[in-house]
């Protein structure tokens, strides 16, 4: 474990976070903390049914409520051209339903009232008459001939089919499979779960009718992209929209999309002339906002009899809910699922993904995951373990045998990615050393002999993060690039503006450290501004582990541009040629004469001073940069999990969890390790308890924290971390991004451990998540059912 002592004053290293003094005093600035003069409160009426035609909506009683200022329906929005909005996947989504409701919890009407209780009271006064329609909940039945058509609003849409997407060489993969000694198949479900940040989604909209400027304080991970969406949806001029996220109480992907509630708050403010706050409750968050996963996969792995993996193929049905609102680069409707060949040197691989509509909430955001990398890693790591069972090989040895070797990087994988760098065996062996792998296997053998159920599970992952190169990637036509602007003030203090948006990742600290490393200015003297679109450069925000890979690169490069400007100014100050100057952190000096130099602070003052500058050099000391990544980055890691299962209750206890992560260069190791801790806990939740389930009528069974279970301090172990550092060769500071690695890598390690515990004694060779006691018990009795 890193500790914060001693804190570096300049550059990289573990140091206390700049954010924390306000957080420990309760002085974070979250959306719901905002209170503006005359502010009104909005509330959303939601559909109780999963699929129904709207016959009528009677709002008269609600409108007559003495504290109600406005009642808005889909018909009202249709009059403004706002009843539908674009999603991030070239689909449309109803803001407020006009024709039908298509999932339970869908937005039907919006009330604006003087206080939050009255707004909720008024929802009860709205009378909606529905005509119930048949529902499709199981994605496997969505394409049946008798399935009701969910999106009959779309011209030409005659089924619930959204897309088919393939990657890899199908024929070559079939050839490799035909030649294989052994082929193992598994049906694997990554069930629907939810990011469930502790702070729900919300907004305060303030339309200034005189200046025509909209200020929207809102929970968004992508403030600039949201601004552009509002400009396109509402026809508001983009320079008259200002988005201010403030502090965000957790995102994990949930706060990437634009939600109907945000749009309704804006409309409410326009209609009433007052600021309008909308803050969803927990059930609304779980019922209606961006879910994650819901992939139904059939995987096959091919190998030689001695355990050389030769091929992998998978067909997937992707449940996208009622509107295709997944967030991912346009070209990739299944996200980056085609990283599913993982960390192994295969001869061939192929995947086919079919996306379908169901009567479930839209979303398909990544829950702490770079665009379906989580599903891909789960698939391959479960398949490798299935092969190990078939061949009776140790799962660690099987992985070691098949890893892509260090000298193969940059590695062209069979589905189109170019992996930047990796030393997989080193990470794997470190994890085995920390875990004491051989001792664990001995302990397991002894316990098995006594009838105790202990399992050891391994997962090795390779991610693809930091989207992305503009030639390949966009969202809504917007390049996935990020800006940074850096201003060094006369006294040598600096302000950095970035387009990434922290949701707890500590950008104010880490990004100051990047500038500090490049310029030698103490990080305490660098203020980082993120979020406020009037104060920060354009960029696509924080998700997909892209902050450090993209915004971090922009930050390093803008600091280097400023450093070069400083060099020219220093040359004038020192009466030397710029070419004769040499940089040491914080200072330009004359080569061979280190006494003759100017600090960055002296240069900053000179840059702003009244004296002459060298010819052609602009005054002041500031610059901007936009970073277009040449490739994605490929963090990796080796995870080993030890579980104990109570044979009487089937309760799984994660006793140990070893995580060796290689995210390239670490700017602040304390923050990196904190990110890993958090993602591991979320992985435990996904593997053991988190599930958004539905009944046959489409009622959501995970609509509160009583039903959607999240691990507490008693369900997670003390994490055991290790690190290797394999820098990214194409990233300016060699960093790769880390926020999502632990959530990607931990679920397969846990599930593999559970199967490892139960295979010999109970013949269990597969189980789907979440591995609740009931589901594990069923598996032990030989009746494992997929989650509903």
């Amino acid at each position, binding site marked *: 474990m890193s500790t914060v002592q001693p804190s570096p004053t300049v550059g990289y290293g573990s140091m206390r976070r700049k954010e924390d003094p306000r957080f420990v005093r*309760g002085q974070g600035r979250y959306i719901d903390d905002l209170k503006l003069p005359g502010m009104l409160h909005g509330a959303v009426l939601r559909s109780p049914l999963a699929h129904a035609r709207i016959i009528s909506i009677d709002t008269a009683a609600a409108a007559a409520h003495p504290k109600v200022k406005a009642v808005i329906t889909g018909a009202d929005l249709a009059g403004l051209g706002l009843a539908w909005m674009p999603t991030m996947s070239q689909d449309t989504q109803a803001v407020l339903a006009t024709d039908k409701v298509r999932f339970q919890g869908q937005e039907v009407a919006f009330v604006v009232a003087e206080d939050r209780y009255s707004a909720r009271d008024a929802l009860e006064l709205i009378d909606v008459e529905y005509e119930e329609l048949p529902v499709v909940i199981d994605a496997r039945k969505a394409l049946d001939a008798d399935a009701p058509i969910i999106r009959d609003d779309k011209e030409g849409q005659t089924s619930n089919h959204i897309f088919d997407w393939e990657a890899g060489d199908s024929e070559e993969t079939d050839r490799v499979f035909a030649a294989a000694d052994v082929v193992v198949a598994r049906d694997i479900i990554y069930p629907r779960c939810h990011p469930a940040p502790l702070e729900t989604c919300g907004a305060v909209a303030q339309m200034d009718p005189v200046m025509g400027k909209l200020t929207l304080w809102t929970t968004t991970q992508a403030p600039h992209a949201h601004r552009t969406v509002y400009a396109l949806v509402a026809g508001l001029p983009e320079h008259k929209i200002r988005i201010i996220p403030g502090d965000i109480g957790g995102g994990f992907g949930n706060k990437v999309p634009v939600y109907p509630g945000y749009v309704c708050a804006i409309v409410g403010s326009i209609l009433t002339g007052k600021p309008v706050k909308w803050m969803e409750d927990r059930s609304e968050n779980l019922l209606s906002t961006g879910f994650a996963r819901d992939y139904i996969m059939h995987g096959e792995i091919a190998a030689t009899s001695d355990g050389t993996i030769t091929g992998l193929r998978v067909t997937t049905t992707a449940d996208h809910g009622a509107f295709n609102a997944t967030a991912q680069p346009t070209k990739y409707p299944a996200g980056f699922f085609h990283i599913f060949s993982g960390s192994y040197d295969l001869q061939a691989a192929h995947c086919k993904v079919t996306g379908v509509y169901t009567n479930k909430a839209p979303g398909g955001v990544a829950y702490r995951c770079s665009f379906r990398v989580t599903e891909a890693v789960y698939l391959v790591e479960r398949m490798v373990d299935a092969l190990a069972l078939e061949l009776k090989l140790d799962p660690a040895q099987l992985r070691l045998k098949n890893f892509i070797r260090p000298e193969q990087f940059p590695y062209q994988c069979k589905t189109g990615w170019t992996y930047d760098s990796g030393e997989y065996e080193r990470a794997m062996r470190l994890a085995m050393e920390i875990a004491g792998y051989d001792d664990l296997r001995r302990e397991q053998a002894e316990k098995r002999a006594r009838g105790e159920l202990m399992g050891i599970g391994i997962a090795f992952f390779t991610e693809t993060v930091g989207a992305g190169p503009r030639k390949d990637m966009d969202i809504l036509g917007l390049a996935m690039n990020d800006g940074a602007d850096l201003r060094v003030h006369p006294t040598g203090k600096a302000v950095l503006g970035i387009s990434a948006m922290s949701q*707890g990742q500590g950008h104010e600290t880490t990004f100051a450290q990047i500038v500090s490393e490049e310029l030698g200015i103490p990080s305490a003297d660098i203020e980082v501004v993120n979020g406020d679109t009037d104060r920060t450069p354009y960029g696509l925000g924080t998700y997909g582990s892209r902050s450090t890979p993209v915004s971090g690169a922009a930050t390093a490069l803008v600091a280097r541009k400023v450093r070069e400007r400083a060099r020219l100014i220093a040359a004038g100050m020192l009466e030397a040629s710029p070419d004769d100057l040499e940089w040491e952190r914080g200072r330009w000096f004359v080569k061979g004469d280190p006494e003759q130099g100017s600090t960055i602070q002296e240069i900053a003052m000179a840059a702003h001073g009244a004296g002459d500058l060298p010819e052609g050099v602009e005054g002041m000391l500031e610059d901007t940069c936009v970073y277009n990544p040449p490739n994605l980055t490929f963090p990796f890691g080796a995870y080993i999990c030890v579980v104990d299962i109570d044979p009487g209750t089937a309760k799984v206890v994660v006793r140990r969890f070893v995580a060796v992560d290689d995210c390239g260069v670490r700017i602040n190791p304390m923050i990196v390790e904190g990110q890993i*801790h958090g993602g591991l806990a979320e992985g435990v939740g996904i593997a053991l308890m988190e599930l958004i389930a539905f009944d046959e009528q489409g009622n959501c069974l995970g609509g509160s924290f009583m039903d959607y279970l999240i691990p507490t301090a008693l369900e*997670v172990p003390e994490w055991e971390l290790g690190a290797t550092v394999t820098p990214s060769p194409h990233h300016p500071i060699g960093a790769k991004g880390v926020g999502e690695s632990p959530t990607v890598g931990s679920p397969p390690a846990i599930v593999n451990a559970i199967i490892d515990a139960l295979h010999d004694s109970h013949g269990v060779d597969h189980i789907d998540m979440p591995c609740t006691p009931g589901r594990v018990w069923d598996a032990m009795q030989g009746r494992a059912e997929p989650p509903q």
Partner: protein
Amino acid sequence: MQVTVTINGEERSADVEPRTLLVHFIRDDLDLTGTHWGCDTSNCGACVVLFDGEPLKSCTMLAATAAGHEITTVEGLAAGGELDPVQQGFIECHGQQIGFCTPGMLLTARALLDANPDPSEHEIREAISGQICRCTGYSNIVKAVRWAAENAPATTTTTTTTTGA
């Protein structure tokens, strides 16, 4: 109805509807927004305050019920502007990321240390097990509370253990 409480050592009063939840009273009427709200169902503990010195989920009590009692929120932890050791511990040990569960965690930790100045790791985990943190994976929160235990001033004086009426 008029509700009066002693909050962070100060007597405060507001006119509220009888149904007003204590968490909304604290946040909206007394403007102490350090107490957060996260779930409605008493599962998450973002709304924990100290109620007569004991941790309480303030979304589970009516403001009216709290009348006449002593409440400590996160804003009251730093006596005289100096951070409570639990606050300092959360900074030293990286016990928070988004800071949303932090106020509730801090208050539970303060109550634990008042009752048990030298808690074990398991005792800390039990004490905070009624609260959810989505970011830290809990390890650093446990370390932060241990830091506070090990760095408690020789004579601890806090305003948080007073028993109310």
